[in-house]
């Protein structure tokens, strides 16, 4: 639970943000016509409300002249029609705008996935699952909401306002002018005020929010420490202080928000006063007939509903912008870190056409011949701000195994990323046959199984096919037997075709470890890196691990294991301890 992740929700709409949203919306491939269709349906819906109010006003005023009922028949039919059409068109508008947005999301999700897949291994392998899920899930939806909740309502506000002004202008031109002025005041004024509110939220709000999260986290997670040192009340006071700041920030946001609410009411009020005044004067002087004058007087009562949606639309626009920016950041290298350089290097891997998706992996992993030696030459890694790991050196030939041992948090997993070529080392180098490893090697000549490697929500067999697309049922069964999962698979309802993962059969920590081990075994890469293979493994599991490593060695593969366990690595002929 990182504090920065918490705060990104209200991230500042930096200058690049609106460009990011435009970019993201372009990536959705949403065409103009479906959006216009949604706006038209929305115009019909809210236009019906305006129409109902106008025709009903005409009807009542006409009826007051006591004509024959037949003169009212048409108006009565129109009033009833508008009474029905509003709900109907609103329904159509919602369907149309959601469908457009969802189609765009499918496109954008695929593009984002492609960009993610093409991004440097160093960028992708260092992303947390939470980040990916939050951005592809929530943030993509937020971009889609820009269509449904910002673009379409704004379009409808414009068209309905124009229609209202048009009707009134045709009857009493001056009244049309007044209505236009009031609608413009309401629309642009509330938009400006809401934008101001969003900016305050982004500046003061984000800061206050981050402080609240940080102080709360400190107060809760270090509660025991505060008790021991008698600092509980101080830590709670800090939360309280951050709380006050957050309250003050909200208060600052409330000022333009309440001004916007007041502005909407006062502009509608002015339009009503103007309408009634001009209509009464015009009817009295005989310039217009009673029924038409009444339309001018009463139409402002219904004309402001569309404009009333502007503040929410502006807020959505700001939210979508921030989301688009975060999505963009997901696939761009981290600026200012040692890893910024890695993305460019992934180009060699980009030659597989993405549309030929299913066939591609089979070829991809077959390309590589054997590798002679893996050399680690005074290799050391570091994150920004982290103490560099102790330099290690080793030379491995096919059939040899290296065990890297060290306590948690010392940088073992980062070291594996460097050996895999995903990130550049801090110092020293990792070489395959004398040439430094590159991100193009990651997953191809060097396969990495991370400690938190993903078990997909699909069948057992498909999970193994993640390593190699053409794994047969027999190969899979054999690999599972090698890791001691033969009895487990026999007990599953559908054997290899049993669904696993969060949607299916649950997998325990030990079973998951073994499954990942089987998957690693099936990967054709000549160099295999495995992070914490012994974690969660009981005695039998340890034996299975030993069997697997022995077998991989017999196949002539180079295996690098990383662990904080001392015991299980007797079969590794090389061993380096990161503690020195």
């Amino acid at each position: 639970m990182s504090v920065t992740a918490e705060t990104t929700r209200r991230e500042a709409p930096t200058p690049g943000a609106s460009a990011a949203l435009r970019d993201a919306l372009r990536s959705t491939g949403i065409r103009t016509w479906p959006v216009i269709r949604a706006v038209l349906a929305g115009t019909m819906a809210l236009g019906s409300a305006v129409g109902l109010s106008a025709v009903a006003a005409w009807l009542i005023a006409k009826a007051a002249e006591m004509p024959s009922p037949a003169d009212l028949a048409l108006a009565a039919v129109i009033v009833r029609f508008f009474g029905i059409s509003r709900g109907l068109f609103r329904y159509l508008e919602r369907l149309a705008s959601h469908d457009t947005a969802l189609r765009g999301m499918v496109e954008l999700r695929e593009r984002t996935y492609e960009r993610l897949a093409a991004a440097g291994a160093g960028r992708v392998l260092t992303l947390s699952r939470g980040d990916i899920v939050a951005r592809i899930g929530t943030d993509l939806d937020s971009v889609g909401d820009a269509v449904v909740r910002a673009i379409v309502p704004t379009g409808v506000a414009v068209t309905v306002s124009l229609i209202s002004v048009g009707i009134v202008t045709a009857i009493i031109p001056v009244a049309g002018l007044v209505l236009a002025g009031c609608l413009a005041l309401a629309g642009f004024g509330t938009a400006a005020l809401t934008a101001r509110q969003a900016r305050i939220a982004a500046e003061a709000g984000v800061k206050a929010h981050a402080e609240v999260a940080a102080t709360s986290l400190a107060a809760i997670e270090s509660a025991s420490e505060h008790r021991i040192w008698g600092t509980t009340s101080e830590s709670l006071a800090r939360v309280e202080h951050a709380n006050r700041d957050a309250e003050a920030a909200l208060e600052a946001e409330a000022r333009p928000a309440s001004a916007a609410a007041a502005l909407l009411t006062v502009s509608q009020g002015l339009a009503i006063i103007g309408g009634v005044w001009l209509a009464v004067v015009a009817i009295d002087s005989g310039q217009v007939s009673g029924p038409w004058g009444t339309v001018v007087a009463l139409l402002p009562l219904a004309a402001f509903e569309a404009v009333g949606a502007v503040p929410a639309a502006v807020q959505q626009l700001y939210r979508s912008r921030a989301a688009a920016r975060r999505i963009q950041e997901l696939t761009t290298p981290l600026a200012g870190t040692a890893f910024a350089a890695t993305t460019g290097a992934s180009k060699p891997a980009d030659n597989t056409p993405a549309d030929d998706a299913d066939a591609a992996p089979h070829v991809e992993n077959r390309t590589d011949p054997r590798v002679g030696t893996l050399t680690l030459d005074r290799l050391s890694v570091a994150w920004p701000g982290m103490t560099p790991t102790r330099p290690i050196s080793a030379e491995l030939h096919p059939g040899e195994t290296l065990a890297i041992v060290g306590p948690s948090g010392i940088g073992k997993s980062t070291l594996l990323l460097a050996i895999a070529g995903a990130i550049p080392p801090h110092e020293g180098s990792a070489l395959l046959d004398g040439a430094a490893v590159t991100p193009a090697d990651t997953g191809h000549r060097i396969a990495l199984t991370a400690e938190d490697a993903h078990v997909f929500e699909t069948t057992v067999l498909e999970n193994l096919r993640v390593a190699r697309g053409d794994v047969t049922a027999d190969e899979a069964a054999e690999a599972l037997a090698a890791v001691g999962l033969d009895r487990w698979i026999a007990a599953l309802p559908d054997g290899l075709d049993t669904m696993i993962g969060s949607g299916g059969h649950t997998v325990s920590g030990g079973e998951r470890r073994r499954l990942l081990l089987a998957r690693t075994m099936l990967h054709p890469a000549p160099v295999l890196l495995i992070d914490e293979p012994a974690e969660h493994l009981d005695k039998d599991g340890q034996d299975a691990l030993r069997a697997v490593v022995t077998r991989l060695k017999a196949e002539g593969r180079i295996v690098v294991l990383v662990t904080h366990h001392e015991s299980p690595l007797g079969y590794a002929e090389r061993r380096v301890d990161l503690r020195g």
Partner: protein
Amino acid sequence: MKPIDPRLVVRIGPARRYILVTAGLGLLTALLVAVQALLIARMLAPVLAPTPLTGDGLGWLGTLVPTSARELSSGLPLLAGVIALRTLTSWLQERLAHRAGAQVISELRSQVVAHAAAMGPRWIASGRGADVVTVVSRGLDDLLPYFVRYLPQLALASTLTPILIVLVLGLDWLSALIVTLTLPLVPIFMILVGLVTRERSEKHLKAMQTLGARTLDLIAGVPTLKALGRERGPAARVRELGEAHRKATMGSLRVAFLSGMVLELLTTLAVAIVAVTMGFRLVEGGIGIETALAVLILAPEVYLPVRNVGTHFHASADGLAAADAAFEILDEPLPAMGGDAPAPDAARGAIVVTGVGIATPDGVREAPSGADVRCSPGTLTAIVGANGSGKSTLLLALAGLLPPTAGRISLETGSAADDAPERDAEVVAQDGALLVDADGWAKQIAWVPQRPDLGPAGRTLSLGQRQRVALDRAFESGRPVLLLDEPTAHLDPDSRDQIVERMRALAASGATVVVATHEPDVVHAADEVLTVESREITEVSA
């Protein structure tokens, strides 16, 4: 679903006050809307009536707006006054809503953080601690739209709507009848639509969630795919799943939006029917123009809050969920913290651990299990053992932060020799309870956990630096008992030697020093070494 969480009203002062004020503003708004409608009717009626108006078309409601308002010269200023008041009301409502929302969030946040901080280390480490931070830093924010958008509309729906119906009744009973008959149809039809479509929408919802989860699952696995060189393939699958997800979502929306359509349909159709009915009655002279205009203007206003409550349904659901999450935390009982006995003076004797076992949160294992050790003043005791064997947990128990589930921790005064007959023991903690005053005991303990927090000052320091500062604080505290958890992790060999030296020096000056460690140097410097182990809790021993 309840529209308001009673706990908000009962326990959170600002929420209660706000609900009362909002109801009051709702009444005021109802009055202003009514007067506005009547004023417009008054001003328009004379120019529309074929013959000069004789009676008062507004009946008893005429007392609200005098007939003199039929003249523009007196009607328009009154209308302007009403508009000014409405503007003020909407400004005030919005302002108060924001303020109340901010205050409620702030108050709940303080309460939740204080409560969570008092829940003890186990609860916090169980993941509930992470939940709390999520609730506090983002979940509670959902209360703002609830207060700003939903509650005011709810207040209007329960004040303005009934009041306006009474006013319409005062003007024209037939229109009032139409309104009163259609209004209950809104919830009835919405429930009916909900019932009819429930099965369908549940099916769609389930398909939608499954597909959404699978898409995310695939994407979340990108690092794994990348590490195995297989990231290219699934792009098409992402699209395929996305298409299926879109179709499922549209299917569910087609159903879900039906209730919205029914709501809009009924409310606008009712207004249309009222208008048409009045039109034909006007022709027959069954109703006056002034009355008809007033009813025409009022009718849509009756339905407006009801419609808005429907629109802001999500704000309500999210807000209530946030409040519920907060109250769920607040309603967890606080663990008992310490007993009534005064804390013994730890400087006077040895802390003796006898058969101490501490159950893991899932209750499956004990870590540590059956620990026995005697930590005497003037000695350095090292606790060693594999990861997860309970080293840190034992330190928590010694600090009085976590009572052992089995065994006993006591302070033995008198001779330190094992066979001295006149030893005097005072039990500190036993059988799942701390028996002495927790604060009195804590005051004598200098405990440095693995990731010390030093407040805002510590945030700019690296973990190693923070550890140094925290150790300095402990070494200089003058407290008789030092409990140090892996004090040499994150430190270079030189600093490590220094720490060992200082621990020895403190022990030499009479302090009781206990250190959990993996470091051979530290173990080597210790007078006493305890190896802790975890063990599964078997049914028999329980």
